[in-house]
């Protein structure tokens, strides 16, 4: 797959995304939009498109970084407890500061996501039995424990409905004024690109990295901060989008290899294209109603995930 096909797909789907919705806006109206239509485009359609692209890119890249650092293909923010920790963090921030501002929520959720991811990496160090499938299972169990803790407190403080909102990713809630936090992900993507080669070296193992004079621990820590922060931002603004960080990097790895410097841009583009595609399907399939993105990505993603698992068996 060539990069320019991905770019083309992204452009076509982006244009499509702008003109799909209950309020009819066609490209022909573009130069004489009514006030209402202008409002819709600026307040809803464009924020939605931007958040889809950023969320798709940053979750896919988070997954890619996690897979390299943990040296396991099936580790991602979904399967390592990162998203669950972030969610627990949001809940804690809601309980502690009842009217938490988005920034406060972000900081607390980020700290939780970071702690959760670190804890998972520590558990990973301790596990002797490093089977490819066993590790993500441990991560899923870990994530479920965190979720049950979160649910318990959510019941106690009557926040179940609030919590459900982050359980399932949903772009229909994205309007201007409610998604801007996501822009913080852009500098994170830039840092990820700068550190790309170092992440790959760290993924070769501590001895290997040290032999080349790389500060292994620092690189791993930077990677985990990027992962935790981007995952937090997506959960806060859009909600959980499962499987994304898992399947996109794996697909890119098949045709592009694992040298992060080469695969990073492909992963980002494919992630954005995939989410955009799923979002459009969710919007047209029961038009004028919508299926939340968490569900569409979940269904299509789990199918692809199963295929990747089978493929791995055939490969060995």
């Amino acid at each position, binding site marked *: 797959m060539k990069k320019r096909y991905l770019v083309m797909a992204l452009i076509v789907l982006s244009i499509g995304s702008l003109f799909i919705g209950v309020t009819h806006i066609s490209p022909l109206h573009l130069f004489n939009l009514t006030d209402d239509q202008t409002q819709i485009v600026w307040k809803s359609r464009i924020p939605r498109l931007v958040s889809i692209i950023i969320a798709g890119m940053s979750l896919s890249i988070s997954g890619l970084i996690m897979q390299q650092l943990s*040296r396991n293909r099936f580790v991602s923010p979904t399967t390592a407890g990162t998203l669950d920790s972030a969610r627990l963090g949001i809940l804690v921030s809601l309980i502690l500061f009842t009217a938490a501002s988005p920034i406060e929520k972000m900081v607390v959720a980020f700290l939780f996501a970071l702690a959760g991811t670190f804890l998972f990496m520590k558990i990973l160090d301790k596990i002797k039995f490093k089977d490819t499938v066993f590790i993500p299972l441990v991560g899923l169990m870990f994530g479920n424990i965190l979720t049950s803790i979160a649910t318990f407190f959510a019941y106690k403080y009557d926040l179940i409905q609030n919590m459900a909102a982050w359980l399932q990713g949903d772009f229909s809630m994205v309007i201007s004024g409610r998604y801007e936090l996501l822009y913080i992900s852009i500098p994170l993507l830039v840092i990820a690109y700068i550190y790309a080669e170092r992440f*790959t*070296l760290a993924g070769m193992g501590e*001895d290997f990295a040290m032999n080349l004079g790389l500060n292994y621990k620092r690189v791993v820590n930077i990677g985990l901060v990027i992962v935790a922060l981007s995952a937090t931002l997506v959960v806060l603004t859009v909600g959980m989008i499962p499987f994304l960080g898992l399947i996109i990097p794996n697909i890119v790895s098949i045709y592009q*290899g694992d040298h992060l410097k080469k695969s990073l841009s492909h992963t980002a583009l494919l992630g954005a294209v995939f989410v955009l595609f799923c979002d459009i399907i969710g919007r047209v399939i029961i038009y004028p109603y919508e299926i939340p993105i968490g569900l569409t990505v979940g269904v299509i993603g789990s199918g692809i995930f199963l295929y990747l698992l089978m493929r791995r068996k055939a490969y060995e």
Partner: protein
Amino acid sequence: MVEVKNVSKRYGNKAVIDQVSVSIPKGKITSFIGPNGAGKSTLLSMISRLIAKDDGEILIDGEHVNQAKSKELAKKVAILKQSNHLNLRLTIRELVSFGRFPYSQGKLSREDWKHVDEAIRYMELGDIQNKYIDQLSGGQRQRAFIAMVIAQDTEYVLLDEPLNNLDMKHSVQIMKVLRRLVNELGKTVVIVIHDINFASCYSDYIVALKDGKVAKEGTVDEMMECQVLKEIYEIDMKIETVNNEKICVYFK
């Protein structure tokens, strides 16, 4: 020259390396031999700063290994550990280019790529340089890793059991390359090796370790003696001279 002075390493109460002192001569192949668990790999890892030592001093060209900057040391010493089972999909060329990281920090210059090309040519990997490592045979993979170490262009090359899992043909191929590294490029090679006859045929200097101590060290002629090897390995053997090489026969 690598100087190891009174170095110890303990895991719990057990001393894996116990007050070891040894000097590794420059521009030679030095082999570490000895029974399993003698501490050979640990010593090699300590020399290359991968493992911290508990006591003693290790100097490379007069400089303390622990005080040297890791980045600078990476231009002087390269180490290849025995288990390089990685599941990343990288091509040989990409792997070899990692060897330039200490110089390029990720941005390879034309000069860096020249070193990469040379290393690939040196290991005769040109035809398969764009193949993924997970598609290679054991011998090819080992050659790819050694090519990376060559691209790293260090004066000291440390290899932990480079012949592990290789057949006769590939073992000989690797040892010949190491010999060329010393003879043609003037490098200092230190290897941990189990096959005593490979050690005999290709090294200049042999250090025998046993129970975390240096049991004996010397030139090949000094070390390839019945009495010496019997003491180290505690089995019966004979030393025969075949084509001017001392061969140890210990199989029955």
